[in-house]
Protein backbone atom coordinates (compact mmCIF):
# COMPACT_ATOMS: atom_id res chain seq x y z
CA UNK A 1 0.00 0.00 0.00
CA UNK A 2 1.37 3.40 -0.99
CA UNK A 3 0.83 6.57 0.93
CA UNK A 4 -0.56 9.69 -0.69
CA UNK A 5 0.21 11.80 2.35
CA UNK A 6 2.51 11.44 5.29
CA UNK A 7 2.29 13.94 8.11
CA UNK A 8 5.11 14.06 10.64
CA UNK A 9 4.90 15.78 13.99
CA UNK A 10 2.57 18.55 12.85
CA UNK A 11 1.98 21.51 15.12
CA UNK A 12 -0.33 24.43 14.31
CA UNK A 13 -0.41 27.63 16.31
CA UNK A 14 -2.75 30.60 15.95
CA UNK A 15 -0.89 33.32 17.82
CA UNK A 16 -0.32 31.60 21.16
CA UNK A 17 -3.15 29.09 20.75
CA UNK A 18 -1.76 25.62 20.13
CA UNK A 19 -4.47 24.15 17.88
CA UNK A 20 -2.78 20.98 16.66
CA UNK A 21 -0.20 19.29 18.89
CA UNK A 22 2.28 17.01 17.22
CA UNK A 23 0.19 14.87 14.91
CA UNK A 24 1.81 12.12 12.83
CA UNK A 25 -0.31 10.10 10.44
CA UNK A 26 -0.15 8.53 7.00
CA UNK A 27 -2.98 8.59 4.48
CA UNK A 28 -3.03 5.64 2.06
CA UNK A 29 -3.64 6.22 -1.63
CA UNK A 30 -7.14 5.65 -3.06
CA UNK A 31 -8.87 5.28 0.26
CA UNK A 32 -11.24 7.37 2.30
CA UNK A 33 -9.81 8.56 5.59
CA UNK A 34 -12.29 10.09 8.01
CA UNK A 35 -11.12 12.64 10.55
CA UNK A 36 -13.46 12.62 13.53
CA UNK A 37 -13.55 14.41 16.85
CA UNK A 38 -15.46 17.02 18.82
CA UNK A 39 -15.65 20.69 17.72
CA UNK A 40 -12.43 22.63 18.17
CA UNK A 41 -10.24 19.53 18.15
CA UNK A 42 -8.16 20.75 15.22
CA UNK A 43 -9.79 18.67 12.44
CA UNK A 44 -10.40 21.54 10.06
CA UNK A 45 -7.02 23.11 10.80
CA UNK A 46 -5.42 19.78 9.98
CA UNK A 47 -7.29 19.58 6.68
CA UNK A 48 -6.35 23.13 5.71
CA UNK A 49 -2.69 22.39 6.30
CA UNK A 50 -2.69 19.65 3.68
CA UNK A 51 -3.42 22.06 0.81
CA UNK A 52 -1.77 25.01 2.54
CA UNK A 53 -5.03 26.95 2.83
CA UNK A 54 -3.78 27.83 6.30
CA UNK A 55 -1.20 30.06 4.60
CA UNK A 56 -4.08 32.51 4.15
CA UNK A 57 -4.78 32.73 7.87
CA UNK A 58 -2.85 35.57 9.48
CA UNK A 59 -0.80 34.60 12.52
CA UNK A 60 -1.02 30.87 11.75
CA UNK A 61 2.29 29.09 12.36
CA UNK A 62 2.93 25.58 11.15
CA UNK A 63 5.71 23.28 12.40
CA UNK A 64 6.44 19.77 11.24
CA UNK A 65 6.40 18.12 7.85
CA UNK A 66 3.68 17.18 5.39
CA UNK A 67 4.86 14.87 2.63
CA UNK A 68 2.80 14.63 -0.52
CA UNK A 69 4.24 12.02 -2.87
CA UNK A 70 7.57 12.19 -1.10
CA UNK A 71 7.91 15.99 -1.15
CA UNK A 72 7.54 18.15 1.93
CA UNK A 73 4.90 20.67 0.87
CA UNK A 74 6.22 23.23 3.36
CA UNK A 75 9.61 23.20 1.67
CA UNK A 76 10.33 26.72 0.37
CA UNK A 77 10.70 25.36 -3.17
CA UNK A 78 7.08 24.17 -3.25
CA UNK A 79 4.57 26.59 -4.78
CA UNK A 80 1.31 26.51 -2.85
CA UNK A 81 -0.66 27.43 -5.98
CA UNK A 82 0.60 24.36 -7.86
CA UNK A 83 -0.05 22.25 -4.79
CA UNK A 84 -3.67 23.41 -4.51
CA UNK A 85 -4.20 22.55 -8.16
CA UNK A 86 -3.48 18.94 -7.25
CA UNK A 87 -5.75 18.92 -4.21
CA UNK A 88 -9.46 19.60 -4.45
CA UNK A 89 -11.25 21.04 -1.45
CA UNK A 90 -14.95 20.99 -0.62
CA UNK A 91 -16.29 23.15 2.18
CA UNK A 92 -18.93 22.78 4.83
CA UNK A 93 -21.36 25.15 3.15
CA UNK A 94 -21.72 24.76 -0.62
CA UNK A 95 -19.90 27.74 -2.11
CA UNK A 96 -20.56 27.81 -5.85
CA UNK A 97 -19.39 30.99 -7.54
CA UNK A 98 -22.06 33.44 -8.72
CA UNK A 99 -21.61 32.25 -12.30
CA UNK A 100 -23.34 29.70 -14.48
CA UNK A 101 -23.07 25.98 -13.76
CA UNK A 102 -20.69 25.61 -16.70
CA UNK A 103 -18.45 28.47 -15.63
CA UNK A 104 -18.25 27.07 -12.10
CA UNK A 105 -16.88 23.75 -13.27
CA UNK A 106 -14.61 25.39 -15.85
CA UNK A 107 -13.17 27.86 -13.31
CA UNK A 108 -10.19 25.76 -12.24
CA UNK A 109 -9.25 25.10 -15.86
CA UNK A 110 -9.67 28.69 -16.98
CA UNK A 111 -7.37 30.01 -14.26
CA UNK A 112 -4.76 27.66 -15.70
CA UNK A 113 -5.31 29.40 -19.03
CA UNK A 114 -7.08 26.46 -20.65
CA UNK A 115 -9.37 28.26 -23.07
CA UNK A 116 -10.03 25.72 -25.79
CA UNK A 117 -13.83 25.53 -25.97
CA UNK A 118 -14.10 21.90 -26.99
CA UNK A 119 -11.69 20.85 -24.27
CA UNK A 120 -13.59 22.84 -21.64
CA UNK A 121 -16.93 21.39 -22.74
CA UNK A 122 -15.60 17.84 -22.59
CA UNK A 123 -14.01 18.32 -19.21
CA UNK A 124 -17.08 20.03 -17.74
CA UNK A 125 -19.34 17.23 -18.93
CA UNK A 126 -16.97 14.57 -17.66
CA UNK A 127 -16.65 16.23 -14.23
CA UNK A 128 -20.41 16.62 -13.91
CA UNK A 129 -20.89 12.98 -14.89
CA UNK A 130 -18.37 11.87 -12.28
CA UNK A 131 -20.50 13.70 -9.71
CA UNK A 132 -23.75 12.22 -11.04
CA UNK A 133 -24.96 15.73 -11.73
CA UNK A 134 -24.85 15.75 -15.52
CA UNK A 135 -28.35 14.39 -16.14
CA UNK A 136 -29.84 16.93 -13.75
CA UNK A 137 -28.17 19.98 -15.27
CA UNK A 138 -27.36 19.13 -18.91
CA UNK A 139 -30.18 21.35 -20.19
CA UNK A 140 -29.32 24.34 -18.02
CA UNK A 141 -25.54 24.55 -18.00
CA UNK A 142 -25.70 28.26 -18.61
CA UNK A 143 -28.09 29.06 -15.79
CA UNK A 144 -26.91 30.38 -12.44
CA UNK A 145 -25.49 27.81 -10.04
CA UNK A 146 -27.69 29.35 -7.35
CA UNK A 147 -30.76 27.85 -8.97
CA UNK A 148 -29.60 24.40 -7.86
CA UNK A 149 -30.65 22.80 -4.57
CA UNK A 150 -28.17 22.64 -1.67
CA UNK A 151 -27.23 19.03 -2.41
CA UNK A 152 -26.79 19.78 -6.11
CA UNK A 153 -24.67 22.81 -5.25
CA UNK A 154 -22.40 20.66 -3.13
CA UNK A 155 -22.03 18.10 -5.91
CA UNK A 156 -21.29 21.00 -8.25
CA UNK A 157 -18.53 22.08 -5.89
CA UNK A 158 -17.12 18.54 -6.00
CA UNK A 159 -17.32 18.63 -9.81
CA UNK A 160 -15.52 21.98 -9.78
CA UNK A 161 -12.73 20.43 -7.71
CA UNK A 162 -12.53 17.31 -9.90
CA UNK A 163 -12.31 19.22 -13.17
CA UNK A 164 -8.59 19.89 -12.68
CA UNK A 165 -7.88 16.19 -11.99
CA UNK A 166 -6.65 16.49 -8.43
CA UNK A 167 -4.85 13.59 -6.74
CA UNK A 168 -6.43 14.26 -3.37
CA UNK A 169 -9.90 15.46 -2.41
CA UNK A 170 -10.26 17.18 0.95
CA UNK A 171 -13.78 17.53 2.32
CA UNK A 172 -14.60 19.61 5.37
CA UNK A 173 -17.95 18.36 6.70
CA UNK A 174 -19.44 18.40 3.19
CA UNK A 175 -22.84 17.14 4.30
CA UNK A 176 -23.31 19.33 7.36
CA UNK A 177 -25.94 21.49 5.69
CA UNK A 178 -27.61 18.78 3.60
CA UNK A 179 -30.66 16.58 4.16
CA UNK A 180 -30.26 12.78 4.49
CA UNK A 181 -31.14 12.11 0.86
CA UNK A 182 -28.58 14.56 -0.50
CA UNK A 183 -26.07 13.22 2.03
CA UNK A 184 -26.59 9.69 0.76
CA UNK A 185 -25.89 10.75 -2.82
CA UNK A 186 -22.64 12.40 -1.80
CA UNK A 187 -21.57 9.33 0.15
CA UNK A 188 -22.24 7.08 -2.86
CA UNK A 189 -20.31 9.50 -4.98
CA UNK A 190 -17.29 9.42 -2.67
CA UNK A 191 -17.30 5.63 -2.65
CA UNK A 192 -17.05 5.68 -6.42
CA UNK A 193 -14.45 8.45 -6.54
CA UNK A 194 -12.00 6.75 -4.19
CA UNK A 195 -11.10 4.31 -6.95
CA UNK A 196 -9.26 7.14 -8.65
CA UNK A 197 -8.47 9.60 -5.93
CA UNK A 198 -7.41 9.81 -2.28
CA UNK A 199 -10.11 11.27 -0.04
CA UNK A 200 -9.79 12.87 3.38
CA UNK A 201 -13.10 13.82 4.97
CA UNK A 202 -13.72 15.69 8.19
CA UNK A 203 -17.07 14.74 9.64
CA UNK A 204 -19.11 15.14 12.78
CA UNK A 205 -21.39 12.35 11.77
CA UNK A 206 -20.25 9.02 13.27
CA UNK A 207 -22.61 6.95 11.16
CA UNK A 208 -21.28 8.64 8.05
CA UNK A 209 -17.67 8.05 9.03
CA UNK A 210 -18.39 4.41 9.75
CA UNK A 211 -20.33 3.93 6.49
CA UNK A 212 -17.86 5.42 4.06
CA UNK A 213 -14.35 5.42 5.50
CA UNK A 214 -11.58 2.86 5.15
CA UNK A 215 -9.43 4.54 7.77
CA UNK A 216 -10.38 6.80 10.62
CA UNK A 217 -8.46 9.15 12.87
CA UNK A 218 -9.85 10.44 16.14
CA UNK A 219 -8.69 13.91 17.19
CA UNK A 220 -9.22 15.37 20.62
CA UNK A 221 -8.04 18.82 21.81
CA UNK A 222 -5.46 19.05 19.07
CA UNK A 223 -4.02 15.60 19.63
CA UNK A 224 -4.37 12.43 17.61
CA UNK A 225 -5.82 10.00 20.11
CA UNK A 226 -5.96 7.01 17.82
CA UNK A 227 -6.01 6.08 14.16
CA UNK A 228 -6.38 2.89 12.19
CA UNK A 229 -8.80 1.11 9.92
CA UNK A 230 -12.41 2.11 10.43
CA UNK A 231 -13.18 -1.33 11.85
CA UNK A 232 -10.51 -0.85 14.50
CA UNK A 233 -11.62 2.64 15.46
CA UNK A 234 -15.33 2.01 15.52
CA UNK A 235 -15.50 -1.61 16.69
CA UNK A 236 -12.31 -2.30 18.61
CA UNK A 237 -10.91 1.02 19.78
CA UNK A 238 -7.81 0.75 21.92
CA UNK A 239 -8.45 3.91 23.90
CA UNK A 240 -11.29 4.56 26.29
CA UNK A 241 -11.73 8.12 24.94
CA UNK A 242 -12.22 6.87 21.36
CA UNK A 243 -14.84 4.40 22.46
CA UNK A 244 -16.73 7.03 24.42
CA UNK A 245 -16.71 9.44 21.47
CA UNK A 246 -17.69 6.96 18.77
CA UNK A 247 -20.51 5.70 20.95
CA UNK A 248 -21.79 9.20 21.35
CA UNK A 249 -21.09 9.56 25.07
CA UNK A 250 -19.71 13.02 24.46
CA UNK A 251 -19.34 15.29 21.48
Amino acid at each position, binding site marked *: MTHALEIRNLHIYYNSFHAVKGISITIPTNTITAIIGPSGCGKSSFLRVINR*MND*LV*PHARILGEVFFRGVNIYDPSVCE*IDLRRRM*GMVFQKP*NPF*PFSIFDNVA*FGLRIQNRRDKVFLQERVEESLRRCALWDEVRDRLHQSAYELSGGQQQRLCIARALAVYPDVLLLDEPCASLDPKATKRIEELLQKLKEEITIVIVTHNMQQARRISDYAAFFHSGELVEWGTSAEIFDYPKKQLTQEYTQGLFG
Partner: protein
Amino acid sequence: MHKFADRMFITLSLAALMFTLLMLFALLVDVFVDGVTRLNGQFLTSFPSRKPEEAGILAALVGSVSLITLTAAIAVPLGVGSAVYLEQYAKRSRFNALMDINIGTLAGVPSIIYGLLGLALFVRVLALDRSLISGALTLSLLILPIIIIASREAIRVVPTSLQDGAFAIGATRSQVIRRIVFPLALPGILTGIILALSRAIGETAPLIAIGALTYIAFLPDSLSSPFTAMPIQIFNWVSRPQEAFHANAAAGIILLLAITLLFNAVAICTRNHFYKISAHCS
Protein backbone atom coordinates in the same frame (compact mmCIF):
# COMPACT_ATOMS: atom_id res chain seq x y z
CA MET B 1 -49.17 56.86 29.99
CA HIS B 2 -46.76 54.84 27.87
CA LYS B 3 -49.01 55.33 24.91
CA PHE B 4 -49.02 59.07 25.43
CA ALA B 5 -45.20 59.21 25.53
CA ASP B 6 -45.07 57.08 22.43
CA ARG B 7 -47.45 59.39 20.61
CA MET B 8 -45.51 62.46 21.68
CA PHE B 9 -42.34 60.94 20.31
CA ILE B 10 -43.94 60.08 16.98
CA THR B 11 -45.37 63.58 16.69
CA LEU B 12 -42.02 65.21 17.46
CA SER B 13 -40.04 63.12 15.01
CA LEU B 14 -42.69 63.65 12.35
CA ALA B 15 -42.54 67.40 13.01
CA ALA B 16 -38.75 67.32 12.61
CA LEU B 17 -39.10 65.52 9.32
CA MET B 18 -41.82 67.85 8.05
CA PHE B 19 -39.79 70.91 9.01
CA THR B 20 -36.76 69.66 7.06
CA LEU B 21 -38.82 68.67 4.05
CA LEU B 22 -40.75 71.93 4.01
CA MET B 23 -37.56 74.01 4.13
CA LEU B 24 -36.08 72.04 1.27
CA PHE B 25 -39.30 72.20 -0.66
CA ALA B 26 -39.55 75.97 -0.13
CA LEU B 27 -36.01 76.38 -1.40
CA LEU B 28 -36.71 74.27 -4.45
CA VAL B 29 -39.93 76.12 -5.25
CA ASP B 30 -38.16 79.45 -4.85
CA VAL B 31 -35.36 78.40 -7.19
CA PHE B 32 -37.80 77.02 -9.74
CA VAL B 33 -39.98 80.12 -9.74
CA ASP B 34 -36.90 82.30 -10.23
CA GLY B 35 -35.05 80.23 -12.74
CA VAL B 36 -37.28 78.00 -14.81
CA THR B 37 -38.07 80.66 -17.41
CA ARG B 38 -34.35 81.27 -18.01
CA LEU B 39 -33.69 77.60 -18.66
CA ASN B 40 -33.80 77.61 -22.45
CA GLY B 41 -31.60 76.88 -25.43
CA GLN B 42 -30.03 80.30 -25.42
CA PHE B 43 -29.03 79.92 -21.75
CA LEU B 44 -27.46 76.53 -22.37
CA THR B 45 -25.47 77.63 -25.43
CA SER B 46 -24.21 81.09 -24.45
CA PHE B 47 -21.06 82.29 -22.75
CA PRO B 48 -21.23 84.64 -19.77
CA SER B 49 -22.02 88.24 -20.58
CA ARG B 50 -22.37 91.62 -18.94
CA LYS B 51 -25.98 91.62 -20.05
CA PRO B 52 -27.89 89.09 -17.95
CA GLU B 53 -30.39 88.23 -20.72
CA GLU B 54 -27.50 87.28 -23.06
CA ALA B 55 -25.49 85.39 -20.46
CA GLY B 56 -25.42 81.62 -20.50
CA ILE B 57 -23.94 78.66 -18.72
CA LEU B 58 -22.12 76.99 -21.63
CA ALA B 59 -18.55 77.60 -20.45
CA ALA B 60 -19.38 76.48 -16.91
CA LEU B 61 -21.31 73.42 -18.06
CA VAL B 62 -18.52 72.24 -20.36
CA GLY B 63 -16.00 73.17 -17.65
CA SER B 64 -17.83 71.09 -15.04
CA VAL B 65 -18.20 68.11 -17.34
CA SER B 66 -14.50 68.20 -18.32
CA LEU B 67 -13.50 68.68 -14.70
CA ILE B 68 -15.55 65.71 -13.49
CA THR B 69 -14.36 63.45 -16.31
CA LEU B 70 -10.74 64.28 -15.51
CA THR B 71 -11.32 63.94 -11.78
CA ALA B 72 -12.85 60.51 -12.31
CA ALA B 73 -9.95 59.46 -14.54
CA ILE B 74 -7.49 60.40 -11.80
CA ALA B 75 -9.34 59.47 -8.60
CA VAL B 76 -11.01 56.20 -9.61
CA PRO B 77 -7.90 54.13 -10.43
CA LEU B 78 -6.04 55.56 -7.42
CA GLY B 79 -8.95 55.07 -5.02
CA VAL B 80 -9.95 51.59 -6.15
CA GLY B 81 -6.29 50.52 -6.29
CA SER B 82 -5.73 51.72 -2.72
CA ALA B 83 -8.85 49.93 -1.54
CA VAL B 84 -7.77 46.65 -3.18
CA TYR B 85 -4.35 46.96 -1.56
CA LEU B 86 -5.73 47.75 1.88
CA GLU B 87 -8.34 44.99 1.83
CA GLN B 88 -6.54 42.23 -0.01
CA TYR B 89 -2.81 42.66 0.43
CA ALA B 90 -2.03 44.79 3.48
CA LYS B 91 -1.14 42.90 6.61
CA ARG B 92 -2.72 43.98 9.84
CA SER B 93 -0.10 46.27 11.33
CA ARG B 94 0.04 49.36 13.42
CA PHE B 95 0.95 51.37 10.32
CA ASN B 96 -2.16 50.19 8.52
CA ALA B 97 -4.37 50.87 11.51
CA LEU B 98 -2.98 54.40 11.49
CA MET B 99 -3.77 54.66 7.76
CA ASP B 100 -7.35 53.58 8.43
CA ILE B 101 -7.84 56.40 10.91
CA ASN B 102 -6.19 58.90 8.59
CA ILE B 103 -8.34 58.02 5.60
CA GLY B 104 -11.43 58.37 7.76
CA THR B 105 -10.24 61.76 8.94
CA LEU B 106 -9.34 62.93 5.45
CA ALA B 107 -12.90 62.22 4.33
CA GLY B 108 -14.07 64.77 6.90
CA VAL B 109 -11.57 67.55 6.19
CA PRO B 110 -13.32 70.74 4.97
CA SER B 111 -13.04 71.12 1.22
CA ILE B 112 -11.46 74.59 1.44
CA ILE B 113 -8.39 72.94 3.00
CA TYR B 114 -8.03 70.78 -0.11
CA GLY B 115 -8.39 73.95 -2.16
CA LEU B 116 -5.53 75.61 -0.31
CA LEU B 117 -3.41 72.48 -0.67
CA GLY B 118 -4.19 72.46 -4.40
CA LEU B 119 -3.23 76.12 -4.65
CA ALA B 120 0.10 75.56 -2.91
CA LEU B 121 0.97 72.24 -4.54
CA PHE B 122 -0.52 72.12 -8.03
CA VAL B 123 -0.88 75.79 -8.93
CA ARG B 124 2.36 77.07 -7.38
CA VAL B 125 4.91 74.30 -6.76
CA LEU B 126 4.08 72.20 -9.81
CA ALA B 127 3.33 75.42 -11.73
CA LEU B 128 0.22 73.97 -13.35
CA ASP B 129 -1.42 77.37 -12.98
CA ARG B 130 -5.20 77.84 -12.59
CA SER B 131 -5.83 75.15 -15.12
CA LEU B 132 -8.35 72.37 -15.63
CA ILE B 133 -5.76 69.83 -14.50
CA SER B 134 -5.09 71.74 -11.26
CA GLY B 135 -8.82 71.75 -10.54
CA ALA B 136 -9.17 68.06 -11.35
CA LEU B 137 -6.19 67.09 -9.19
CA THR B 138 -7.57 69.12 -6.30
CA LEU B 139 -11.03 67.58 -6.58
CA SER B 140 -9.40 64.14 -6.88
CA LEU B 141 -7.69 64.63 -3.53
CA LEU B 142 -11.01 65.68 -2.09
CA ILE B 143 -12.94 62.59 -3.20
CA LEU B 144 -10.17 59.97 -2.91
CA PRO B 145 -10.96 59.15 0.74
CA ILE B 146 -14.65 58.74 -0.12
CA ILE B 147 -13.87 56.38 -3.00
CA ILE B 148 -11.38 54.41 -0.90
CA ILE B 149 -13.81 53.97 1.99
CA ALA B 150 -16.74 52.96 -0.25
CA SER B 151 -14.60 50.57 -2.30
CA ARG B 152 -13.15 48.93 0.79
CA GLU B 153 -16.64 48.42 2.14
CA ALA B 154 -17.73 46.82 -1.14
CA ILE B 155 -14.66 44.57 -1.26
CA ARG B 156 -15.03 43.55 2.38
CA VAL B 157 -18.55 42.19 1.93
CA VAL B 158 -17.54 39.76 -0.83
CA PRO B 159 -18.09 36.43 0.98
CA THR B 160 -14.86 34.83 2.22
CA SER B 161 -16.31 31.43 1.35
CA LEU B 162 -16.19 32.31 -2.36
CA GLN B 163 -12.62 33.59 -2.13
CA ASP B 164 -11.61 30.43 -0.23
CA GLY B 165 -13.27 28.32 -2.91
CA ALA B 166 -11.18 30.02 -5.58
CA PHE B 167 -7.95 29.79 -3.58
CA ALA B 168 -8.55 26.12 -2.87
CA ILE B 169 -8.74 25.35 -6.57
CA GLY B 170 -5.37 26.97 -7.15
CA ALA B 171 -6.21 30.57 -8.01
CA THR B 172 -3.54 33.17 -7.30
CA ARG B 173 -4.41 36.22 -5.23
CA SER B 174 -4.66 38.36 -8.35
CA GLN B 175 -6.94 35.82 -10.04
CA VAL B 176 -9.19 35.78 -6.99
CA ILE B 177 -9.33 39.57 -7.06
CA ARG B 178 -9.97 39.78 -10.78
CA ARG B 179 -12.47 36.96 -11.14
CA ILE B 180 -14.30 36.81 -7.81
CA VAL B 181 -13.78 39.90 -5.68
CA PHE B 182 -13.91 42.53 -8.37
CA PRO B 183 -17.07 41.45 -10.21
CA LEU B 184 -18.93 41.09 -6.91
CA ALA B 185 -17.68 44.36 -5.46
CA LEU B 186 -18.07 46.35 -8.68
CA PRO B 187 -21.63 47.64 -8.18
CA GLY B 188 -20.76 48.76 -4.64
CA ILE B 189 -17.59 50.43 -5.89
CA LEU B 190 -19.54 52.14 -8.68
CA THR B 191 -22.08 53.45 -6.18
CA GLY B 192 -19.27 54.97 -4.12
CA ILE B 193 -17.64 56.50 -7.18
CA ILE B 194 -20.86 58.07 -8.42
CA LEU B 195 -21.70 59.53 -5.01
CA ALA B 196 -18.17 60.91 -4.71
CA LEU B 197 -18.37 62.47 -8.17
CA SER B 198 -21.76 63.98 -7.43
CA ARG B 199 -20.16 65.63 -4.44
CA ALA B 200 -17.23 66.85 -6.53
CA ILE B 201 -19.48 68.44 -9.16
CA GLY B 202 -21.10 70.66 -6.55
CA GLU B 203 -17.87 71.79 -4.86
CA THR B 204 -17.16 75.51 -5.06
CA ALA B 205 -14.73 76.44 -2.31
CA PRO B 206 -11.67 74.45 -3.43
CA LEU B 207 -12.05 75.72 -7.00
CA ILE B 208 -12.28 79.31 -5.86
CA ALA B 209 -9.26 78.70 -3.63
CA ILE B 210 -7.13 77.57 -6.56
CA GLY B 211 -8.34 80.61 -8.45
CA ALA B 212 -10.62 79.23 -11.12
CA LEU B 213 -11.94 82.14 -13.18
CA THR B 214 -15.52 83.27 -13.39
CA TYR B 215 -15.50 85.01 -16.72
CA ILE B 216 -14.56 82.56 -19.46
CA ALA B 217 -15.75 83.27 -22.96
CA PHE B 218 -14.30 80.16 -24.57
CA LEU B 219 -14.37 76.42 -24.03
CA PRO B 220 -11.43 74.64 -22.35
CA ASP B 221 -9.37 73.01 -25.10
CA SER B 222 -6.53 71.41 -23.17
CA LEU B 223 -5.55 70.27 -19.71
CA SER B 224 -3.81 73.56 -19.10
CA SER B 225 -6.75 75.78 -20.16
CA PRO B 226 -8.21 78.13 -17.59
CA PHE B 227 -11.72 77.01 -16.77
CA THR B 228 -14.85 77.77 -14.84
CA ALA B 229 -17.39 75.42 -13.32
CA MET B 230 -21.10 75.57 -12.63
CA PRO B 231 -20.95 76.26 -8.88
CA ILE B 232 -18.51 79.11 -9.49
CA GLN B 233 -20.68 80.62 -12.19
CA ILE B 234 -23.71 80.37 -9.93
CA PHE B 235 -21.80 81.96 -7.06
CA ASN B 236 -20.73 84.77 -9.36
CA TRP B 237 -24.24 85.48 -10.62
CA VAL B 238 -25.73 85.42 -7.14
CA SER B 239 -23.27 88.05 -5.97
CA ARG B 240 -24.28 90.52 -8.71
CA PRO B 241 -26.65 93.32 -7.69
CA GLN B 242 -28.96 92.98 -10.75
CA GLU B 243 -32.12 90.89 -10.27
CA ALA B 244 -31.81 89.39 -13.74
CA PHE B 245 -28.51 87.72 -12.85
CA HIS B 246 -30.22 86.04 -9.91
CA ALA B 247 -32.60 84.40 -12.35
CA ASN B 248 -29.56 83.09 -14.23
CA ALA B 249 -28.18 81.74 -10.95
CA ALA B 250 -31.47 80.00 -10.23
CA ALA B 251 -31.48 78.42 -13.68
CA GLY B 252 -27.90 77.25 -13.11
CA ILE B 253 -28.91 75.73 -9.77
CA ILE B 254 -31.76 73.81 -11.41
CA LEU B 255 -29.34 72.42 -13.97
CA LEU B 256 -26.79 71.45 -11.30
CA LEU B 257 -29.53 69.83 -9.21
CA ALA B 258 -30.71 67.86 -12.22
CA ILE B 259 -27.20 66.56 -12.85
CA THR B 260 -26.71 65.59 -9.21
CA LEU B 261 -30.09 63.91 -9.15
CA LEU B 262 -29.17 61.94 -12.24
CA PHE B 263 -25.91 60.80 -10.61
CA ASN B 264 -27.77 59.70 -7.49
CA ALA B 265 -30.40 57.84 -9.49
CA VAL B 266 -27.67 55.87 -11.24
CA ALA B 267 -26.04 55.17 -7.87
CA ILE B 268 -29.28 53.83 -6.40
CA CYS B 269 -29.91 51.61 -9.41
CA THR B 270 -26.45 50.05 -9.24
CA ARG B 271 -26.79 49.54 -5.51
CA ASN B 272 -30.09 47.71 -5.91
CA HIS B 273 -28.48 45.49 -8.49
CA PHE B 274 -25.67 44.85 -6.00
CA TYR B 275 -28.02 43.78 -3.24
CA LYS B 276 -29.68 41.31 -5.55
CA ILE B 277 -26.35 39.58 -6.21
CA SER B 278 -25.10 39.57 -2.64
CA ALA B 279 -28.42 38.23 -1.38
CA HIS B 280 -27.81 35.27 -3.64
CA CYS B 281 -24.37 34.58 -2.23
CA SER B 282 -25.14 34.59 1.46
